[in-house]
């Protein structure tokens, strides 16, 4: 998902303080550090991934984003990134509000459950969709709260969360999401990338 990283990088101002929530093996952090000269931290739950981050010289804190974001003061980061993990939380609503508390802005990316291939899979096969961005079976998927781009868009509107930028990503093509093309983008985008603020 290099394309996703490039888009995220472009959303981040240079020389800012950034937190990558669920930073995994640090690939995105490393990419951003190199390209945006930012001061970046990661929080990650997997011990194996933490080792990988340390090997890359990245600053990472072992922890569970659902509990451990509380340790950061209000507005302690310019940007907080949550890349493709929102759907894996028990309480995504709370996580979003924590992201917006800790960060002045937040970047949230979500695999779009409204993508036409996902819909077609369910329509034709009648089983839970398995695609490249949703590779797991229903019984072992970490994804507890799948949503569509439209869902997230509406969620932000209802919560008065400012959708600063909304980007649809379809393979290598990215395009702007607006309330006018939302229904279409919800069908064609694999991934939604949102820059939000309170």
């Amino acid at each position, binding site marked *: 998902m290099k394309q996703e990283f490039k888009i995220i990088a472009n959303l981040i101002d240079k020389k800012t303080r950034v937190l990558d929530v669920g930073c995994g093996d640090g690939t995105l952090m490393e990419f951003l550090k190199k390209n945006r000269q930012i*001061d970046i931290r990661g929080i990650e739950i997997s*011990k194996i991934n933490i080792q990988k981050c*340390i090997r890359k*010289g990245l600053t*990472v*804190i*072992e922890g569970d984003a659902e509990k451990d974001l509380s340790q950061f003061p209000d507005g302690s980061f310019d940007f907080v990134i949550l890349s493709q993990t929102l759907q894996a939380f028990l309480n995504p609503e709370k996580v979003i509000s924590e992201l917006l508390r800790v960060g002045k802005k937040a970047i949230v990316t979500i695999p779009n459950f409204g993508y036409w291939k996902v819909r077609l899979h369910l329509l034709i096969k009648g089983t839970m969709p398995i695609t490249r961005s949703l590779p797991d079976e229903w019984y072992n998927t970490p994804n507890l709260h799948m949503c569509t781009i439209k869902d997230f868009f509406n969620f932000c509107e209802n919560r008065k969360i400012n959708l600063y930028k909304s980007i649809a990503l379809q393979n290598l093509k990215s395009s702007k999401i607006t309330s006018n093309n939302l229904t279409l983008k919800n069908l064609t985008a694999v991934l939604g990338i949102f820059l939000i603020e309170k």
Partner: protein
Amino acid sequence: MSKEINIKNLIIDKPLKLDCGQTINNFPIAYETYGDLNEKKDNVILIFHALTGDQFVSGSNPITKKDGWWSYAVGPGKAVDTNKYFVICSNVIGGCLGSFGPNATNPETNKIYGTSFPIITINDMVNAQYNLLDYFKIKKLFAVMGGSMGGMQVLQFVSNFPDKAVIAIPIACTSSHSAQNIAFNELGRQSIMADANWLNGDYSNQDKNPNKGLSVARMAAHITYLSKNGLQEKFGRKLQERDNLKFSFDADFQIESYLRHQGSVFVDRFDANSYLYITRAMDYFDLIKEHGGNLSKAFANTRTKFLVISFTSDWLYPTSENKEIVIALNAIGADVGFVEIESDKGHDSFLLNIPEFLTTLKEYINTSYLKK
């Protein structure tokens, strides 16, 4: 201590005002170094030892003839690679391996200090050791690190000298000794004091030694360094060189024999009064209170990069207490990483061959050195 053992000593002629109010002068700090100081003098790692540690962090300890206490982590090619880094470790004041402690002779009375030695604190230990930087003419350390009481000294060091170390690695420690920590230390102290040979601390002047008390103190403390699972796995209810219970108070169980052994070897290398003084210093350690209830203030203005490490089965200085340090550092936007290492070896884990721990140390130190 036989005379041929070479203990490097530095006499500190700069007066040091202790937290208790007394000032000490012309006192010795015993130290050891490993590896070579490079030309830029930017490869220095200062290691702080734990309660019963000493300056012999690696190689062979000339007193015990055993490996240095942190040989798994420190040495040529090890996590702290002495082919690359210049490692300094010194005996804390209050200790008994050459640094100024209660077994030193008071020049005014020509008697061994014993309990007339001033009470010292972690802060005093750190301030005393800081003199090593002047001695080696080191402007900035690359790293300060240590486990347990060594970790407390790391925290105190950065708090006292916010711009003197590039990285700091406090391991399995706390920013404030808990009631449980104090309780166990008090148990050890009372055991020493209950020994008839302790003689109010004057035993050395009267050719006596409270070995039994010190040995029990060590046995009790040793249990706190292990975990229940670790003990169960290693010893279970296994019997010691016998097939059946003896119906006596002999060491029937292997765990009993093991603890007795730990106690008896300890008294050969450690001074009972030092044990009192150092445990007291640990109990008095409260970096939170020192900063008006806000631990973050201890690290205000620091530019040191931290990696805090804890172990899953350490119940003496549990992950939650290590995390408090991380939280305090995050609150002021300091550069802090944190990792909890999976181990069933309890608090002792930091001294043992735990590959995941040693790899973490090595990677962190080496990448930080490249990026500094």
